[in-house]
């Protein structure tokens, strides 16, 4: 499974969830597949999941989805302990784990490229195993994303991908066509019912 296939699955599973995406190409890919007003793209490295946690705590009636690459997620991985401490049932976190940083040439191995295990980190942070999912097969990822979006969470889905269709830094990479400020304004309006 490559990144494009993985994002196709994650985007299809989104439904009406509020979503926060991490930095890089995942944001452009989600924008092209499942844009919605309640979306903040290109959250700075390490913070997409923490912001999603805050939204989930504020709006327990609304599903919230964080989408991060493994490099960004690992940079803020301490949030795993906070998520499990607070246990918002409406939060799902999808990590697209290709084991390289997606910036520059996209070849520098990340922590998971050196053996780190994000799902294992969640378990070591106290998560129950039935809330932690890791898969590399598209059908299995789709199944786990369905569980994450439809059953009480929090859920963590680690989507292991290869780098065959990764897109190194380039002006040709897909990007969201919405300013960060506008994203926040739309998110707030959507969540408050003022949109």
């Amino acid at each position, binding site marked *: 499974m490559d990144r494009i296939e993985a994002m196709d699955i994650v985007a299809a599973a989104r439904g009406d969830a509020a979503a926060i995406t991490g930095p890089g190409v995942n944001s452009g890919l989600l924008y092209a597949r499942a844009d919605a007003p309640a979306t*903040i793209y290109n959250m700075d490295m390490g913070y997409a999941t*923490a912001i999603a*946690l*805050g939204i989930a*705590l*504020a709006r327990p009636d609304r599903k919230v989805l964080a989408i991060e690459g493994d490099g960004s997620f690992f940079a803020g991985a301490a949030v795993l302990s906070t998520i499990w401490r607070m246990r918002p049932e409406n939060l799902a976190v999808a990590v697209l784990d290709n084991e390289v940083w997606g910036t520059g040439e996209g070849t520098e191995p990340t922590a998971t490229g050196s053996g780190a295990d994000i799902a294992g980190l969640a378990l070591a942070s106290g998560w129950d195993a039935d809330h932690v999912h890791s898969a590399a097969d598209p059908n299995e990822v789709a199944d786990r994303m369905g569980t994450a979006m439809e059953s009480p969470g929090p859920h963590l889905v680690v989507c292991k991908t290869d780098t065959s269709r990764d897109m190194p830094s380039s002006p040709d990479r897909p990007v969201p066509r919405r300013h960060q400020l506008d994203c926040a304004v739309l998110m707030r309006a959507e969540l*408050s019912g003022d949109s």
Partner: protein
Amino acid sequence: MTGDAEGAAGALLRGALRAGVDACVYLPDSVLFGTIRAFRASGEVLMVPCAREDEGIAVAVGLDLGGRNPVCMMEASGLGYSGLILARAQVQRTPVTILASHTAGGGEPMDYHGATRLLSDGVFRGLGIPFEIATGFDGLEDQMFRAVQTARGQRTCFGLLLPPHVMRGAC
């Protein structure tokens, strides 16, 4: 805690509640622990302990987006981790009111707070985030109210820095 220290914590709580604060993201701190306890005991504030201060500010940004009115409490050392997420909060106009202990001003006798006191004012000043330094607990309730009021009204982060002598009732 001395009676004066309890008074300072109570003043901050009253000011926060007057301003509509309903969530608090925090990391425990030797200066602010009484205030954290007071907020928790109020039963009116969602309390979210976090693992890192920058993570806490990110959680508070999410709480704001979801319609809550959060404050963050931390030792100012945590502001040193938080430059990027504070900058993002400013860019996207998602206000967070921050209560942080220690300042670059007087009343900081401990050498191990040396880096912390340099960070506190410096991070706010560098990012253009408005901040005030409490000088005593007379008027602290109103100062807290105004900090939140300004953060919400202007959609900017706002810092209220609390020297140890203010919070320990040794003014």
